[in-house]
């Protein structure tokens, strides 16, 4: 009965191993990934290092302002006598954490909106996509500033928790996700519409699949490729948004250091201590650039033209 020879079938090879090989071929992306890994590792050393050097990064010491680099303060001290290096390391933790968390949150939000719109179609789709179109056009920074200025005690939060560092951190993550989910939504919608009309979804429906099953089993895995690519590129934009917002004073506020708010004071000090303006910005730039290169590499690795190589005709 069997009239297909097994030899004609190529060995199964996971798409992921192919992709990883391609990604490794993108040298700039590979170097960037290594750079980001090292940077993250260094930033995570902030606490142990501060213990070792005996430094409290948030403690001001007006007698030790603008110290040059020395054995205890490897990059010197800032205008309030705080250690620059340790603050940069903590700032890096914040930036990277905000970048990853906000991207994750907006992916969830965007996929929820996009898949709902795309899979249900009709009026739901029309309304949701009009909303998305408008959101895409809006100027993000002014919107973020208003959201950053919202007084959470007016929403029923106690003053203590609204002012806690964790809350301020989460609030940044949430507001960035709230204004910037639209790209994800568009991508998810386009994918959902494509997959919705595939015959395999129809076959599953005939076999008794409900909408939820089809979304989870068929739609999400099949739209994951463009989503992963877009998410990687989003991380960089989020880090920029967070640092801009913190620089303007509506993001993460001192004493918690971030690369953005470390530059806020630097603006007043450009004559007396211009070097303080260099490190945080350089780190933002290098990190965002590296993330974008990694994003480019992921896009290259996930290029669908490479996935068809195994197809036999």
């Amino acid at each position, binding site marked *: 009965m069997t009239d297909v020879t097994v030899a004609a079938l190529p060995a199964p090879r996971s798409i992921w191993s192919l992709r990883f090989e391609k990604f490794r071929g993108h040298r700039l992306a590979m170097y960037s990934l290594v750079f980001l890994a090292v940077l993250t590792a260094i930033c995570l050393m902030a606490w142990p290092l501060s213990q070792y050097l005996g430094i409290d990064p948030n403690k001001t010491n007006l007698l030790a302002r603008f110290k040059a680099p020395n054995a205890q303060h490897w990059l010197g001290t800032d205008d309030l006598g705080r250690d620059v290096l340790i603050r940069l390391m903590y700032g890096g933790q914040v930036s990277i954490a905000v970048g990853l968390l906000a991207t994750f949150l907006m992916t969830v939000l965007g996929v929820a909106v996009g898949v709902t719109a795309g899979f249900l179609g009709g009026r739901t789709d029309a309304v949701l996509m009009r909303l998305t179109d408008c959101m895409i056009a809006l100027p993000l920074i002014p919107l973020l*500033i208003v959201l950053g200025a919202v007084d959470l005690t007016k929403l029923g939060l106690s003053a203590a928790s609204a002012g806690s560092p964790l809350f301020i951190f989460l609030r940044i993550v949430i507001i960035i996700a709230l204004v910037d989910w639209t790209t994800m939504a568009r991508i998810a919608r386009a994918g959902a519409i494509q997959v919705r009309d595939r015959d395999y979804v129809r076959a599953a429906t005939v076999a008794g699949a409900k909408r939820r099953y089809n979304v989870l089993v068929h739609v999400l895995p099949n739209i994951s490729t463009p989503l992963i690519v877009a998410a990687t590129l989003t991380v960089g934009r989020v880090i920029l948004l967070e640092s801009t917002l913190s620089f303007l004073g509506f993001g993460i506020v001192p004493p918690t250091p971030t690369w953005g708010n470390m530059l806020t004071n630097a603006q007043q000090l450009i004559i007396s201590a211009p070097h303080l303006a260099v490190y945080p910005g350089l780190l933002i730039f290098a990190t965002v650039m590296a993330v974008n*290169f990694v994003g480019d590499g992921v896009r290259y690795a996930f290029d669908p033209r490479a996935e068809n190589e195994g197809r036999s005709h």
Partner: protein
Amino acid sequence: MLRYTLSRLSQAILVTFVMSFLLFMLIGLMPGDPLENMLEGNPSLTPELMAQMRELYGLDQSVFARYWNWLMAALSGDLGYSSLYFRPVTDVLFPAMLQTVKLMGLTLLVSVPLALLLGSLAARKPNGLIDSVVGVFSFASISLPNFWVSLLLIILFSVKLGWLPASGTPLSAAPSALEQMRHMVLPVAVLAMFHVGPLVRYVRASMIETLSADFVRTARAKGLGEGSVMVRHALRNALIPMVTVLALSFGSLFSGALVVETIFGMLGMGKMIYDAIGNIDFNLALVGLLLATIVTLLANLLADLAYALLDPRITL
């Protein structure tokens, strides 16, 4: 076409109203309340008097009622008073808008030609040396924090070299045109640097596509010079959809303008909004944000219409 225009216009108006309500709510959530800020430090105010004032200004009503009152007043031309500048909001915002238009206009004058030039150069030999350099440049453009670049340029050109002023607004009462221009150099440079990156990538992609199209090959076969092919055929084709790309970048350009205006101390819309929110000037913040929103929506609407007009594939 008329039907399409009307339908898009009515949608834009609807969105404007929805946005105005959302912004009204958000602004209301800023710390403090308008009355306290207005009368701060007035010792003759008893709690009873405050309550009376609240009632007078309708602050004890629900957010919907207050929005309705505000909307009715706004539609009849009364946009309120700025508590920061002690002047009607319109008086404050009008010159600010001119300033921002000037900044953004000059930026476009720099970024668009630059994007066309770099994009075309890169497209001539994809993956060649120039293309790689331009590619890294455009990556840098989208990765650079614009506030940091502003600080660096100020440190370099104003503090160290002393060539250019660190502020975007001349101090003298009646500055000459040249003086005004000198103050605009750094802000425009930063904004253009930040605006040009995505444009370059777009121009490059669209030029590569057109350069491989049949009609361009025909033009080459006819013996037209390379420069002539680039400019007369490829570039012209890439320009039309660029209208849409530019319009879509309007929002991010405005965001950039806010940052640049704040750093260079230019009294534009962006800085107005920033200061208004920072100083809890409810009226100014609301109207400024709403104005920015409306202008952005309008830009997108015009781009959609222009695209529909220019592209025969969209049926109206």
